[in-house]
């Protein structure tokens, strides 16, 4: 144990960290403070009010867009979980000649920037009529998230002893049974990491939602907000109230699942 003496060094470090905390928290303070002002108060009139919060719900279909965000996240994450756990299990435990090539393909796919495929993908989706509801965005998010999720699941399944799988096969279980009954329950921590990472990714995204959800009625909250701000709405307090609403779900998820998020981030460093 490190003893907590208040040496000059400790105090200096503490003060430096406090200053930095203020810098990192500033956006929240600004959003909260500004959202509780009317337009006039933002431009200098004294006091606070809830006028902008009332206005927000007239400007932006907040509840509908929160629901849209939730549905798009749920759809994309479900697809990612199904394909990534299966593929990860196949790579880690059902090795064949094709495994190394497949694994290389998955790692290679992680290198493809969204902007490099977005134009052909957009044209394809429009030809397939995928731009009118949620599906275009859901599929693109799922495809973008699957390679890294597969990579995570693969390294996790590799940690499960081969003997365990082989013993189960000898006992007469089929691979699908081993996957469902043994591997998946053991992989819950990795699955949670994937869910948390992808939730924040998809919830916060603008570009895919902007292009692949054409009907404004299906827009996610982040896209709704982005479109509003690009429309140069000058009512800044309303924008800030909207920002706050859009940020809260991701922040709550972050606060609860911080450790999983950090695990996901550092998983790429390798051993």
């Amino acid at each position, binding site marked *: 144990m490190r003893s*907590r003496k208040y040496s000059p060094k400790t105090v200096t470090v503490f003060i430096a960290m406090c200053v930095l905390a203020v810098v990192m928290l500033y*956006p929240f303070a600004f959003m909260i403070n500004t959202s509780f002002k009317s337009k006039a108060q933002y431009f200098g009139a004294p006091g606070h009010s809830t006028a902008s919060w009332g206005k927000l719900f007239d400007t932006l279909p907040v509840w509908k867009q929160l629901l849209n965000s939730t549905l798009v996240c749920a759809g994309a994450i479900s697809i990612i979980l199904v*394909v990534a756990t299966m593929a990860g299990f*196949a790579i880690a435990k059902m090795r064949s000649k094709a495994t190394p090539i497949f694994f290389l*393909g998955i790692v290679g796919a992680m290198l493809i*920037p969204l902007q490099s495929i977005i134009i052909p993908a957009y044209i*394809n989706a429009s030809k397939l009529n995928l731009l009118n509801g949620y599906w275009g965005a859901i599929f693109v998010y799922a495809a973008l998230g699957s390679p890294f999720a597969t990579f995570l699941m693969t390294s996790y399944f590799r940690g499960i002893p081969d003997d365990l799988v082989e013993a189960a096969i000898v006992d007469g279980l089929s*691979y699908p049974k081993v996957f469902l009954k043994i591997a998946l329950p053991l992989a819950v921590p990795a699955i949670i990491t994937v869910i948390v990472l992808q939730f924040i990714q998809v919830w*916060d995204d603008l570009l895919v939602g902007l292009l692949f959800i054409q009907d404004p009625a299906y827009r996610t909250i982040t896209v709704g907000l982005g479109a509003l701000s690009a429309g140069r709405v000058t009512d800044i307090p309303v924008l800030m109230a909207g920002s706050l609403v859009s940020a809260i779900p991701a922040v709550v998820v972050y606060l609860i699942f911080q450790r999983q998020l950090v695990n996901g981030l550092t998983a790429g*460093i390798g051993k």
Partner: protein
Amino acid sequence: MFFATPALILVSAFLGIPIIQAGYFSLTEWNGIDAKWLGISAYLQEFKNPIFWRVLENNGLLLLGVPVAILFPMGIAFLLNEKVAGWKIFRSIYFLPTAISWVVIGMVSMRFFAQEGLLNEMLKAFGLGFIKTDLLSSEKGALFAVAITFIWSMVGTNSIIFLTGMATLDQSLNEAARMDGAGNFRIFRSITLPQLNRFIQFSFIITVISAFTALFSLIFVMTGGGPGFGTTTLEFFIFQSAFSRGNFGTGAMLGVILFFMMAILGIGQLLLMRKKDE
């Protein structure tokens, strides 16, 4: 391989096939419906476009922020690693922006740098009111503001990476070196840094990839690529070319160029790591 089939289909359909299509359409003049074959001259034409180079210059200038976005968080990780009272709370606070969308960050950042924003108020409070600037209204100023916002948003991610790295440090090495009379700086340079190498590399890759491919939403909200082409980076130029100007062929080509840049970076990293393993 039955188990891998769904992943294979999904990734091929939405990433694999489109990247091949992008390669093909990059060699054409394409409005999204009809494509006219141009061949390699499509690229040569674009290389003569001064705006293309202007855009790459912006990317280059943003890269100047990368060392700051790595070294500053490294310093923060050292502070956190002192484990003074409340360090876990500080860690959570620094990492918090990771959960916030670029749209929100961009909107706040825009007000911060604005004429009546906090930046100018702070300058005034320090008696530097005469510097009063509207950064977002000049090309270089706006890029600077974008870079600062980018660095700010990388603080959490990179601090966490280095903090993870510091947990792996072998303390006995430090003590042995101290016995041999090595000073703090010497220990940092010859013992700590080499042990952190892997983590520095990782944070470098993450930061460069973010600088090239993660800033679309920030730029979209904060500056719209302007003023002029002041903050148009390659990724934003792709979007503009295709969806504002209808030049889908040019957009596809720029996407292919971005892909090759990132692929070279990724492969370079892999080779570097393999060399170390041998």
